């Protein structure tokens, strides 16, 4: 069994802080969600994960984006870069980077759930024949890059030819977010509950992915596996479990409520 080899201390640089574990869930209404899975090249396999998590074979990552109509943080868009992994025997993802379009969403995602979110221009546009997602550093999405102020998008992907699926055909996997918590530096287990009303699978292409801009230069999503888009409501329940990032789940898991 292989485990992550990334330095926990290095991963912890800039990690969000959860001052107190919340007890209430957060409900996101009218969400258009996109999820893309891509295989990674082997050098990234162990190197991007902390020792408490295990890579899968072949290494893979997910790119996801939300366009949210209603939430306690108002309407916002967000994008997440996560490495597919296992915590113990369970399917999980390790969140490497996140971006959100509003300060309130950034603050909520960081302080309540430990997502390493930062402010960016995030756009998810759904058309009758596809979906486009663009993420750019804040203020650079329109003319910034063209004017030479920026270095290009952090993420740009296009997905075409939607093929309807049943709402039960989509599998959602929880996110492990490294954060400073009242229990110390921990992997915070975030389990989102999805209530989709429509799910489609699409053929997608990643036009641009700036791995360094997401905080992990080793990520190289070279082989797209699948892409889906859903219309749904999403609930993010309060945190129940955290894990010591340096220990296997069987030894390092703590219940927080």
């Amino acid at each position: 069994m292989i485990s992550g080899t990334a330095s926990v201390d290095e991963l912890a640089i800039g990690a969000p802080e959860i001052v107190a574990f919340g007890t209430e869930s957060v409900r996101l209404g009218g969400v258009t969600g996109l999820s893309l899975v891509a295989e990674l090249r082997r050098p990234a396999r162990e190197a991007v994960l902390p020792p408490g998590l295990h890579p899968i074979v072949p290494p893979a990552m997910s790119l996801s984006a939300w366009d949210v109509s209603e939430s306690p943080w108002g309407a916002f868009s967000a994008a997440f870069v996560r490495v597919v992994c296992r915590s113990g025997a369970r399917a999980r993802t390790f969140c490497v980077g996140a971006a959100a379009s509003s300060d309130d969403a950034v603050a909520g995602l960081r302080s309540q759930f430990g997502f390493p979110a930062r402010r960016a221009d995030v756009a998810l546009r759904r058309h009758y024949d596809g979906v486009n997602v663009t993420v750019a550093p804040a203020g650079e999405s329109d003319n910034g890059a063209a004017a030479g102020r920026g270095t290009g998008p952090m993420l740009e992907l296009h997905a075409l030819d939607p093929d309807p699926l049943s709402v039960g055909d989509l599998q959602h996997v929880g996110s492990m977010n490294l954060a400073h918590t009242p229990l110390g530096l921990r992997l915070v287990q975030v389990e989102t509950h999805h209530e989709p009303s429509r799910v489609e699978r699409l053929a997608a292409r990643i036009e641009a992915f700036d791995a360094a801009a997401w905080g992990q230069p080793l990520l190289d999503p070279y082989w797209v596996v699948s892409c889906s888009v859903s219309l749904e409501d999403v609930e993010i329940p309060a945190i129940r479990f955290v894990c010591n990032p340096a220990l296997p789940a069987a030894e390092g898991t703590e219940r927080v409520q």
Partner: protein
Amino acid sequence: MKFGIFYELSVPRPFSRVNEWLTYHNALEQCRVADGLGFDHVWAVEHHFLEEYSHCPAPEVFLTAVAAQTQRIRVGHGAVVCVPEMNNPIRVAERAAALDIVSNGRLELGTARSSTWTELGGFCADPDDTKKTWDEFCRVIPRMWTDDDFGWEGARFEMPARNVIPKPFQEPHPPMWVTVTTPGTELDAAERGLGCLGVSAAPFAEQERRTKEYYRRVANCDPVGSFVNDQVHTLNFLYCHEDYRQAAALGLPMVGAFSMSNAHLYFTREAYPTRAYQTLGNAGAALRSRGAPNGSTPADDPSVAKGLPEGVGIGDPDHLVRTIRKWEDVGVNGINFLLNAMEMIPQEQVLDSLRLFATEVIPQFRTPAERAARVQAPTTIPDVGAPGALAPPTMPAEANR
């Protein structure tokens, strides 16, 4: 009750040529011992790219060696992945027939469709199609074995008429099975008259429900082959020791390591949204089987991976007899055992476990007549007279002019 041994051929890290060699050759020795002890089957899987979990992509090669080194144990090709990107059905029929001949009619053929993206993606196979191609393979292979002039125009496979040779040694053909990982596949097996080769853990109650429904449906099936193979076998682990505590001390870590390596595969449902894969394969089954007593999925606590499914074949002989009786009671008529995982148990202790099980447990499930029958070859080998009696006639000299 039939008893078999089952090979994934899991290899420990760090990988080395020696580790793979040792895993294969330890397994071959176990097969020779099991043959002499009266075990009924040796099964070997087909998996690709599943590092650590299974280094067995060419089971027909392994099983040919088993057949050559044993006398009576049946060889289970279990299971051939019925996905055209991995196997052409003509080649499956040809290879299986050749193995049946070499083994003197000891072949059982399992069929499957793969549950991991690791494998399907590696061959650029479309997960949406695998159930359909599996169905078509199941229908054409027995006809290739029995028809002298076989052609097919199907949804996923076609061929002009040919005589697919050689024909298998068994008449009319070897028994056929389907591996059952996800609930519902046992119904696919029943409707086609295929044996139910369980490869994932299920609690007694669930196994009983599924087995009962299988037998109900298979009684009225439309078999894809020339006969109905109405058997239900299940997969288990085996570590038998006179001292229950010692059995648990060695056996339980083996189960845990195997289950963990299974959980670390990339299952199709997780990677690729599709109607064709509604569960996480046997990883999902393993987690379900460790759930709360009411069968519900355990909480999302990631540390919950330490428990064991009920009915595991680890313990002293008395415990194993009681456990197998329960499997018998729920309608299972065969159990195939994984003997090791990642070579965690030293080979001598694996062999001791096999011997103890064969001495103390297997006889409890055999009648005197069955015990006597087991010393005979399972298939009668034709009396061909002196060596060379079946040689082709010498070509007349004038034919070369």
